[in-house]
């Protein structure tokens, strides 16, 4: 008797579990009709941006399209998930990715929808600045649309600057002098990290010292052992040894470190504004932004640009609608809503940013005061970038003699370029 009841109970439980597993998530949108309301399945590794995307839904729902947001907090897990989803029938409608070699990989396999027409229209309507298209062009065709852009600049704590009588540096010499003064008065001048963004000071220094070498590394025409690169590494090493940087073992959030004045300056992309706003730091009062002066003044102003794509999976259930959404994303309406939400700059030249510090930066860029450079991460071959995370991570932590690290990077680059033929 008891055994029968136990078996029956187990069978019912197993059946119930099975049914819940089967029903699962109805991802990939409902309906699929062009006229009705459509929910697009949207995936991203920027899980923290969910509120912004939900706010965008309010703007886009006028057209009847909304996003069903799935955010991953771990970038590696997200990348694997997207790659594996292409081997299933549930190709994502919309997803964020990375420009550069990684987008190239997807394009090569024909996994993302072509957007050449969307770009042509956007350029005709003046929705995108000149040159942005190059980041999305492979073999003369465009794929995906820009989700966002970020410029990399120096954020600084205004109160610390005032207290120690420091003016916003306009030349690299001024910047070093400011660092020296801050150090002498017991304030850590700069922030840097030995993970995720370990390469950013390399990029800032090299682009400012020798932009043609910075670009040459991206195509294999320059070498990591070139004298300019060695000079930059030695300069960086000297700065670390002089104690200009915070100890990379401190894992407190950079926005907290900056707003409390534990570091005076932090080199970040303009997405950092959103992070500062989240902890109630006020732009223009608590912090300001200035472009990093070039290490060699003769090189002219260099502005590092980072852009991330919004992609439509080729063969996705709602591909048509997703492409329409992509086109809408670049319009003035969408981008105005987006900048207001994120507090970051927009690639759309017609959209003004509320934040005065950011707008100042955007105006300077639009006034052609700067040469735009791609961020190191996206611009360089993937195996070289992956090795650089190890080399620069160790460099930020231990400031070793740079030669060995540079030799290893060059060896990796040479292997990569020889395979390209």
């Amino acid at each position: 008797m008891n055994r029968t009841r136990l078996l029956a109970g187990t069978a019912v439980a197993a059946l119930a579990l099975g049914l819940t597993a089967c029903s699962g998530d109805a991802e990939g949108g409902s309906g699929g009709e062009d006229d009705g309301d459509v929910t697009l399945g949207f995936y991203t590794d920027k899980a923290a941006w969910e509120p912004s995307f939900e706010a965008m839904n309010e703007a886009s729902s006028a057209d009847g399209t909304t996003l069903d947001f799935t955010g991953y907090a771990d970038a590696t897990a997200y990348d694997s998930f997207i790659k594996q989803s292409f081997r299933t029938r549930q190709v994502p409608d919309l997803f964020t990715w990375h420009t550069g070699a990684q987008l190239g990989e997807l394009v090569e396999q024909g996994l993302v929808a072509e957007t050449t027409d969307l770009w042509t229209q956007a350029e005709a309507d003046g929705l995108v600045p000149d040159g942005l298209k190059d980041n999305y062009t492979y073999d003369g065709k465009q794929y995906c649309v820009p989700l966002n852009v970020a410029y990399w600049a120096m954020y600084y704590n205004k109160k610390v600057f005032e207290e120690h009588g420091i003016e916003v540096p306009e030349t690299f010499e001024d910047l070093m002098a400011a660092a020296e003064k801050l150090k002498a008065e017991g304030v850590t001048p700069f922030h840097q990290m030995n993970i995720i963004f370990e390469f950013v000071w390399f990029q800032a220094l090299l682009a400012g010292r020798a932009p043609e070498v910075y670009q040459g590394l991206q195509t294999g025409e320059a070498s990591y052992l070139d004298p300019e690169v060695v000079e930059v590494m030695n300069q960086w090493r000297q700065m670390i040894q002089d104690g200009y940087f915070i100890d990379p073992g401190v894992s407190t959030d950079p926005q907290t470190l900056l707003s409390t004045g534990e570091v005076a300056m932090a080199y970040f992309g303009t997405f950092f504004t959103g992070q500062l706003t989240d902890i109630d730091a006020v732009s223009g009062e608590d912090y300001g932004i200035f472009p990093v002066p070039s290490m060699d003044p003769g090189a002219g102003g260099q502005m590092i640009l980072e852009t991330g794509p919004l992609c439509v999976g080729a063969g996705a259930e709602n591909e048509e609608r997703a492409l329409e959404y992509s086109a809408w994303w670049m319009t003035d309406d969408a981008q105005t809503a987006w900048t207001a939400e994120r507090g970051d700059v927009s690639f759309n030249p017609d959209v003004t940013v509320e934040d005065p510090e950011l707008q100042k930066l955007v105006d300077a860029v639009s006034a052609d005061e700067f040469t735009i450079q791609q961020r190191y991460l996206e611009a360089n071959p993937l195996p070289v970038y992956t090795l650089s995370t190890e080399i620069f991570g160790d460099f930020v932590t231990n400031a070793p003699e740079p030669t060995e690290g540079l030799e290893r990077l060059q060896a990796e680059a040479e292997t990569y370029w020889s395979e390209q033929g």
Partner: protein
Amino acid sequence: MSTLTARRAPVDTTPGARRRPRHTYLWSARGFALPALGVVALLLYLPFVWTGYLSFTEFNGLGDPEWVGLAKYQEMFADAGFLNSLRNTLYWVVGTLVLPVGLGLLIAVLTYGIAGSFWYRLPFLLPYAISGVAVGVIWTFILQTGGALDEALALVGIVDPPRWLLDSPLNTVVMIGAATWQGAGVNALLFTIGLQSIPKEPLEAARLDGASGWTMFRTMTWPMLTPLTTVVVGLSIVGSLKQFDVIWAMTKGGPGVSSETLALTMYKETFVSNDYGLGAAIAIFLTVITVAASVLYLRRQLSGAKEL
């Protein structure tokens, strides 16, 4: 007498009859075991075979794997980073054998037989209930530059402490410490069970002969703990070889690759560098040494037991 025989079930004692029930029993036994076996085969053996196949291919997660034979294994053995990971893994194996096992034994022996021994063991056991990532996060908070430990040291006047998580091999040592904090308790529990199962008579006899303290432990208690020691050491070897959560949560194998172990290299090569072939080769290698270590150790222990 007659009532007893009446209650006994009738048994058919002809030769053929005895074979039939056993035959049916075997088939129904197999039938019951098959679904479970199916699940294990699908979720464990099939992926293992697939990983083995991938270790002979060039694959980046998109498109199809391309057969390259032993190239990935050659690449693995030639890589300096691989030797570094191997060395760190060895530190972990040795460290986990010395610290959590040794500490567990110490706790078990010290708290055995005294009043309230459960309450003495409990604080050591509680960390086992939390996940490896949580352990990593807690200890990062303590060990980061300017973290809880550095602040405590500053209070006693040590203002220039070592960089716990940044300098190698110190970072591996402190992470083994964090893993010890988590693992010592459960080892203590297993050893306590072992101590409880030791028969009292031989110990009494030894005490009458004059043995006590260290001599008692070395000559009587320790040899009789062998069954549990085998379990604890076996589990520690396997656990240390596949340790991932704590290391990933604390340093991600960094800075650079200084604290990377084989498990982390396998993960990084597969999911960060997108070289599934190399990651698979490392996975197969790790499986081989784990199985080899376990088999060698267990065979030695269990054949030794037969001699007793």
